[in-house]
């Protein structure tokens, strides 16, 4: 029964691997599983088998990228800002074509746009803190200009998101005036609020996953430690800057001593000093 389950697991995970690489991937995992059963026993072989899912996910993320995936690849800060600029420009273009609102007949029906922003901000700040990561746990920090660049990048993203929301807001303005009691305005309010919440949260999450020096997305995630050794060692996921600027440790569970991601710069002090 366990053997069958393991085979099903491998088969399902193999679906994530690209067709051209699937056969070899499956052959390697089947072979390794055969040895794992002999050397680790059935229970640990089952745990071993779960690694196939991580491996298949890695394949699905890193196999040759095509079309849409390549466009949506926001690893570089320039590409990220570029894509947001395209969205903002498209939004402005659409907003330009929305007709001007009709004259106000019923003042009570006008929705408060400021309220939409306030509600969106409250929803973002409510569930968790807005802190990105602890960058100060280092002996030497990069120069002020580099640190400023990080905030400029975040500000640019938020500004472009706000610009992108201009077209829906303008439509909301128009729809609310044209159909004061109609459904379109209500739907667009919801769309704008949740859209802003989602994109603001994305911009903060994205910021936290970038190197503070080169602003590129971090990669190579590795699990460090075990939940069982929780009070004795780190239990987190380690990400690293692919240009070698440093590493980010994201805690699996938040504790009083390790409650937010911690960034360590790879400076000369990281090297060995015999």
């Amino acid at each position, binding site marked *: 029964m366990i053997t069958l389950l393991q085979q099903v697991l491998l088969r399902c995970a193999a679906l994530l691997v690209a067709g051209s690489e699937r056969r070899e991937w499956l052959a*390697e995992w089947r072979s390794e599983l055969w040895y794992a059963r002999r050397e680790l026993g059935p229970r640990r072989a089952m*745990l*071993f088998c779960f690694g196939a*899912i991580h491996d298949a996910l890695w394949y699905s993320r890193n196999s040759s990228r095509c079309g849409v995936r390549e466009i949506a690849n926001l690893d570089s800060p320039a590409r990220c800002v570029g894509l947001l600029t395209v969205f903002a420009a498209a939004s402005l273009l659409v907003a330009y074509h929305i007709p001007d609102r009709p004259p106000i007949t019923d003042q009570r029906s006008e929705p408060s746009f400021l309220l939409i922003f306030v509600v969106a901000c409250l929803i973002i700040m409510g569930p968790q803190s807005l802190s990105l990561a602890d960058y100060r746990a280092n002996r030497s920090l990069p120069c002020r200009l580099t640190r400023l660049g990080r905030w400029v990048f975040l500000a640019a993203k938020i500004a472009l998101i706000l610009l992108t929301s201009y077209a829906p807001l303008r439509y909301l303005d128009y729809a609310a005036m044209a159909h004061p009691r109609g459904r379109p305005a209500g739907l667009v309010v919801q769309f704008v609020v949740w859209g802003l919440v989602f994109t603001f949260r994305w911009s903060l999450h994205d910021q936290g996953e970038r190197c503070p020096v080169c602003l590129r997305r971090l990669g190579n995630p590795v*699990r460090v430690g075990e939940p069982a050794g929780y009070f004795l060692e780190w239990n987190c996921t*380690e990400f690293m*800057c692919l240009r070698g600027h440093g590493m980010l440790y994201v805690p699996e569970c938040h504790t009083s001593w390790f409650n937010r991601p911690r960034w360590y710069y790879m400076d000369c002090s990281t090297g*060995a000093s015999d």
Partner: protein
Amino acid sequence: MLGEANLSHSAAMILHAIAAGSNYGLSVMQMTGLPSGTIYPALRRLERDGLIRSQWERQSIADAEQRPLRKYYRLTRTGQATLEASQKRYPLLAKLTSASETEQP
């Protein structure tokens, strides 16, 4: 190509394990103590970056021993150079993997 600066501690451990003779996924896992979900994607990354090279063993060898074919990994020259650089960066690397070796039954 991956430079010495951007080799994480776990990747350096895996590279060190391969250099020490653990030349297939399961043995790297046993030597480093890292889970399979970390080891195999890391092996793919290291191979993609040209630090290791994989090769299936010959069918005749596996047939003679009545076991499945196995995929072996070995260091490339770049991998060897990167490992030497990372040993300077992580001086406890050798001790960590040797501790795992002694812990094994």
